[in-house]
């Protein structure tokens, strides 16, 4: 082996791992309807990214393009560093489709065996059974899938997405048919994937779910990326609501110094920066007390992702990173 090739190998191993998903300029038209219009985003290794947007925003089309199920009119996709045009790029990808159906004449155990074989890896039977147990189907491993309810089929779909030891999991509406317990199970599952360093791309209508587990959010509207960024970037400022008595001009000036101030009678609202520094609020309260203000209530509040999403979709522009 030459010194040059060793150096090149070292250089390669020292490179940061390629993102789990990298896509650029995705475009797709169905006849006259533009479904996806110049979508670009990245999902880092081990990152959980939420895909949000109204019905018909192109979320499922984007997911299908990423997985090679729909051919884009333009754009490039890399999955775990490999061009998605090559089916081998999906070797370490697990997928739960929005329209989930599995061979009704097979048992769940057989469905998992089939998918492991198609993925081209060897997974011991015990691990496959563990995967079924993880989604709550341990007792039904040998029943026919045809006898399953929609919720149970969706649980099976989760097991299928997880069985071949994926490094990237793409979940398209994973809780659409699940009851509240099932949704909580999925949330725990997402957190455990995150802990294991598995990247997740999650398309969900349940904003609360996305807000709780996602590191970053990509908001799609009319086939375009309307906004994207980390939750704190997207949600922007925090609010501090106060109910005060005896507010002097000096006290009001102190409040205004902390952030943009609005006042309705005794109620004051101060807009604070997104980053929590742990000192702004206590210092403000101490100063107000020092200035002789009587404090009845101090209530920190955060704009919810839902409010922010509606705001972005209504105004047609996001202030997050594009």
């Amino acid at each position, binding site marked *: 082996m030459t010194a040059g090739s060793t150096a090149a190998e070292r250089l390669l191993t020292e490179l940061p791992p390629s993102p789990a998903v990298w896509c650029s300029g995705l475009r797709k038209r*169905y006849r006259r309807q533009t479904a996806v219009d110049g979508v670009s985003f990245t999902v880092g290794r081990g990152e959980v990214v939420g895909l949000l947007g109204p019905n018909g925003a192109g979320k499922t089309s984007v997911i*299908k393009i990423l*997985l*090679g*199920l*729909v*051919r884009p009119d333009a754009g490039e996709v890399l999955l775990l560093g490999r061009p998605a045009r090559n*089916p*081998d*790029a*999906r*070797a370490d*990808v697990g*997928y*739960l*489709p929005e*329209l*989930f*159906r*599995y*061979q009704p*004449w*097979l048992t769940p155990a057989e469905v998992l065996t*089939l*998918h492991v*074989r*198609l*993925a*081209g890896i060897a997974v011991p039977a015990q691990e496959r059974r563990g995967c079924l147990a993880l989604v709550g189907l341990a007792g039904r491993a040998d029943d026919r899938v045809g006898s399953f309810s929609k919720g149970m089929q969706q649980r099976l*779909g989760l097991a*299928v997405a997880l069985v071949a030891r994926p490094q990237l999991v793409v979940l398209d509406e994973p809780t659409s048919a699940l009851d509240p317990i099932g949704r909580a199970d999925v949330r725990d599952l997402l957190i455990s994937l995150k802990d294991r360093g598995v990247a997740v791309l999650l398309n969900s209508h349940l904003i609360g779910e996305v807000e709780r587990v996602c590191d970053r959010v990509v908001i799609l509207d009319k086939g375009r990326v309307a906004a994207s960024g980390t939750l704190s970037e997207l949600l922007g400022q925090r609010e501090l609501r106060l109910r005060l008595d005896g507010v002097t001009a000096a006290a009001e000036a102190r409040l205004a110094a902390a952030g943009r101030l609005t006042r309705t009678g005794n109620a004051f609202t101060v807009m604070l920066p997104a980053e929590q520094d742990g000192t702004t609020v206590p210092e403000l309260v101490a100063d107000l007390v020092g200035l002789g203000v009587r404090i009845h209530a101090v209530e920190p509040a955060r704009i919810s992702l839902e409010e922010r999403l509606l705001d972005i979709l209504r105004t047609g522009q996001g202030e997050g990173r594009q």
Partner: protein
Amino acid sequence: MIVRTVFTIAALTLQEAARRRVLRALAVLTVVLLALSAWGFSRIDAEFGGLTSGEAKAVASIVLNLVMFGLSMIAALGTAFLAGPTLAGEIESGIALAVLGRPVRRAAVLVGKWLGLVTFGGSFVAVAGLAQLLIVRATVGYWPPKPATGLVLLAAQTTVLLTLGLLLSNVISPMASGIVAVGLFGATWVAGVVGSVGEALDNASVARIGTVSRMLLPTDGLWHGAMNSFQDPALLRQAGSGFGESPFLSMAPLTSTYLAWTGLWVAVMLGLAAMAYHRRDL
């Protein structure tokens, strides 16, 4: 990787056929047909007791071809209606999404499905056809000259029609694909009859209808080859040149050129189906 995908999907297709109702329906139909033919052949023996052994053989050979035609119809129609709907149905229901989200080539999935269906259709023809031949031997003592060749050609006929069904289901709706495949199968058979009338009347342009249709869809050509393997050679000598080809009598075995053409036809149709499947948005 590709080979593993092909065999995995082929095995899955066979498992599907075995576990779904299609196998039971096909088994019932076949048993009914075989039972009827057994009864019919035993009547031939009883009613035409006065026939010479040569005459009895000739009658048995023609009736065998008739029954085999029924059998090949069941196999061809069964697989044609199975081929299109399974592929298109999986796309519509969403089963295909999870499978094709795996690191598999779509062409390999399609070829796997095709291989599974060919094995299924071929096994059906082999088992049911052999049972029929044994029934004939038991009832009237007739054994065709080339039974294996005949059964292989019948299996090839089934293969041709299911390949067409797979291609059509990628281009038109699944139900329409079954209907069109069966319609074309019937049309080619009728064109073959018209062609044989043309031959009998020495009318070259009418006879060409049969030839052209056998090139466009090789089902009727293969059927004639199969008949030739099942019928009594003495029958041809008896029939002489006056008869020519007929729907249930074949004068000559298939040429190797025609068999090569059939192979090429299947390969091209399968290639087109794979291309259409590959380009399809799911």
